[in-house]
């Protein structure tokens, strides 16, 4: 779609910028990546009253053009890169009218870049309630920009905003706000002269941010560095001077144009809610109550749609098997690609529900309070208050949780959170645990109400939290901090969630997950399919020949014969051979080669375990028949000793392995995407799998 004008939305967090974006573009939006960085780029289209089409870019919320996190660093680079395809023709600065002072700081910075700008004054009703009256015309006159009062929530003033966008000038007419040159006169003049810039503030920002700006060449960046040395430029002092000058300007401006009727500092309602929600006792009780509800919902509400998705794929697989000509290509498509696809799709309900909850908690302002309450505990183990959200999300799935670590500004805090989140018991481990617990833990009640199996499962969940925290504590000492950690965070006023935003967050996250993680999962399942379907040499032919001899065909029912053939083929496939190869290594953990195959296939995704077990113990390949798999596993005997394979020790050792091992291709893919290097997924894979081996070993040796 070709747009006539490109508009960027810029504003502080919690100003309703995203709501405005959703109102302007509706479902007509997409998430991509900014070139070279993994920050979500939200773009959409909107029709203007004069018939032209505007492309709208929602830039990450920030308090200033000086970035504090990865998301924020995008804002200046998009505004500054004149050669980029994303360079906006017009910037709409969204300002929270009830908090003008802090919001105007960002406005003055953007205005001084001399990009055409419009101010959207959001939340006028809130300002009213707080007894703030704003002389909008006076303010617009002083700043020299059009100011449009809007209410993004109530969809008020949006038409007016669109009209103003369509009338916007191609050149910036706003008044300069502060005397930028005086901050570092010689440096600004010199950079401006050498790089042929006509804007002193742009030159100053280059001096500050040249190291991270992608559009500068290495020579240019080095040259700026040289000039900084020459004029002994001190970035932090310069920034402090600039910030004070800007706030002096803003205070004078607000003194002339804004009247406060009463000195009500804070929202009385918000304060009352806070008294309960951050109470030293009730605060935690409510928080854990919400968590409990979230888990229940993630499991309970997703069960039905997940079943539908699974059934759909089973149906698709069997009908494709019937319609397509039999052969290796059909098998690859149906058992490799489509089976892999179903492994991705089946998680969509859980991811959508998890993100709906996270988006509601964030939208209402509660998440900031959770961060506030938990920061002290989390800091003790090397995490930050902001790690709470991903860790909780890890109970559902590590993939979206790792995506949500982007809000953590501090590099070390963020890395530790990413590294330990996959240890938390995710939903893919649930089928493995239920199967194994059902196998070795008797289903009887202790202390009247507690089911022994349920207790074992709860113990696995608690144990995973404990291990995540312990590993985080170790990482705290191993990882070097790149910058000082700090925790300066706005506690936004409580608001009702906007259901439209919640819905869009669900759709977007699910889409991103399918597209990004889907690629890897499909690739890995295809490889696994090949490994499990083909064997070295002519072993498969020999098996076929052996069982086609009359004595077998006559004495065994065809169904049983096929199962025996399938299971013998699996043993002789590349996967089976690999199982035999690793058997000596996993023997001390109590595992035989068959479990070895399941371990290997589970590296694609943990829940593959049940399916692999089903195939190995030759149960029609239908993972749904849990009782049958369970029965077969229960009956499985060690051919050498004649004793059952799945003893209490083996089952718990196996559960420990699944608790620690990095058996999830999607998580590895997402960690790669978030860290932009294979180093971190490799470290994660190494430490988790190493721990899995050691702890399984200890478990088996102690229990056997």
């Amino acid at each position: 779609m070709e747009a006539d004008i490109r508009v960027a939305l810029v504003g502080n967090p919690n100003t309703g910028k995203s709501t405005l974006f959703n109102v302007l573009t509706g479902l007509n939006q997409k998430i991509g990546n900014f070139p070279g960085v993994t920050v979500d780029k939200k773009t959409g289209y909107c029709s203007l009253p004069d018939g032209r089409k505007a492309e709208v870019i929602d830039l990450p919320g920030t308090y200033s053009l000086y970035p504090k996190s990865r998301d924020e660093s995008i804002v200046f680079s998009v505004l500054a890169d004149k050669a980029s395809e994303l360079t906006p023709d017009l910037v709409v600065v969204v300002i929270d009218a009830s908090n003008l002072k802090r919001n105007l700081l960002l406005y003055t910075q953007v205005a001084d870049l001399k990009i055409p700008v419009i101010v959207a004054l959001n939340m006028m009703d809130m300002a009213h309630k707080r007894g703030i009256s704003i002389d909008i015309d006076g303010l617009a006159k002083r700043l020299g920009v059009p100011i449009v009062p809007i209410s993004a929530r109530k969809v008020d003033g949006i038409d007016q905003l669109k009209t103003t966008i369509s009338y916007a000038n191609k050149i910036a007419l706003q008044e300069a706000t502060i005397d930028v040159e005086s901050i570092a006169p010689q440096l600004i003049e010199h950079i401006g002269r050498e790089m042929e810039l006509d804007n002193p503030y742009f030159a100053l920002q280059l001096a500050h941010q040249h190291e991270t700006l992608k559009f500068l060449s290495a020579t240019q960046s080095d040259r700026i560095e040289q000039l900084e040395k020459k004029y002994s430029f001190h970035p932090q002092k310069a920034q402090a001077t600039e910030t004070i000058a800007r706030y002096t300007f803003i205070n004078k401006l607000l003194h002339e144009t804004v009247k406060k009727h009463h000195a009500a500092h804070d929202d009385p309602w918000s304060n009352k809610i806070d008294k309960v929600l951050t109470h030293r006792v009730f605060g935690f009780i409510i928080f854990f109550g919400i968590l409990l509800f979230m888990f229940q919902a993630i499991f309970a509400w997703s069960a039905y749609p997940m079943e539908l998705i699974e059934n759909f794929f089973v149906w698709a697989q069997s009908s494709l098997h019937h319609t397509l000509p039999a052969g290796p290509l059909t098998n690859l498509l149906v058992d490799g690609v489509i089976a892999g696809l179903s492994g991705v799709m089946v998680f969509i309900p859980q991811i959508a529900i998890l993100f709906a909850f996270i988006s509601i908690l964030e939208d209402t302002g509660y998440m900031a309070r959770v961060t506030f309450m938990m920061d002290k505990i989390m800091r003790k183990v090397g995490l930050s208050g902001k790690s709470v959200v991903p860790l909780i999300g890890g109970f559902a799935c590590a993939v979206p949780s790792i995506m949500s670590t982007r809000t953590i500004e501090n590099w070390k805090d963020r890395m530790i959170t990413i590294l330990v989140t996959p240890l938390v018991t995710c939903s893919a481990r649930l089928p493995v645990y239920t199967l194994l617990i059902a196998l070795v833990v008797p289903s009887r009640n202790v202390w009247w109400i507690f089911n022994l199996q349920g207790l074992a499962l709860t113990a696995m969940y608690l144990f995973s939290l404990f291990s995540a925290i312990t590993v985080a504590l170790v990482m705290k000492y191993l990882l070097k901090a790149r910058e000082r950690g700090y925790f300066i965070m706005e506690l936004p006023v409580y608001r009702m969630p906007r259901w439209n935003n919640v819905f869009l967050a669900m759709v977007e996250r699910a889409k991103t997950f399918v597209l990004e993680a889907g690629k890897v999962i499909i690739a890995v399942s295809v490889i696994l399919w090949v490994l499990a379907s083909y064997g070295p040499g002519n072993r498969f032919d020999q098996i076929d020949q052996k069982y086609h001899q009359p004595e077998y065909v006559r004495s065994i029912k065809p169904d049983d014969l096929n199962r025996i053939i399938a299971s013998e083929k699996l043993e002789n496939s590349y996967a089976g051979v690999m199982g035999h190869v690793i058997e000596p290594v996993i023997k001390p953990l109590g595992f035989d080669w068959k479990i070895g195959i399941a371990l290997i296939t589970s590296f694609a995704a943990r829940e593959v375990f049940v399916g692999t077990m089903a195939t190995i113990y030759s149960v029609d390949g239908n993972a749904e028949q849990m009782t049958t798999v369970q029965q077969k596993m229960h009956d499985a005997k060690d051919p050498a000793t004649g004793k059952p394979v799945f003893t209490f020790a083996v089952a718990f050792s196996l559960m420990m392995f699944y608790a620690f091992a990095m058996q999830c291709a999607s998580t590895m893919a997402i960690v790669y995407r978030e860290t932009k290097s294979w180093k971190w997924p490799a470290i994660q894979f190494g430490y988790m799998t190493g721990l899995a081996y050691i702890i399984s070993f200890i478990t088996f040796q102690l229990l056997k």
Partner: protein
Amino acid sequence: MFLFGFNLNKRTFVPVQIENMRLSQLEVGEKGIVKEFTDLEMSVKLMEMGCLPGEEIRVARVAPLGDPIAIHVSGYQLSLRKREASTIILQ
């Protein structure tokens, strides 16, 4: 303001400046006006968030475990750790 304290190394009485009140020392509900900062890096971040010299600050609440704290400043609520609050010197 100066008082005299005993310096163990020099074994004499030396003038010791009595430190100004810091934000971290305020109780919930107490107010103060920002005078200066002890840490440049932190001051830049705090000032961007509206915590400037001359600005009035009121402590709104303390997190259940005693840290961080939440303050009212520039018409909104900001939370910060006690260690960060201790870099803010009040008048």
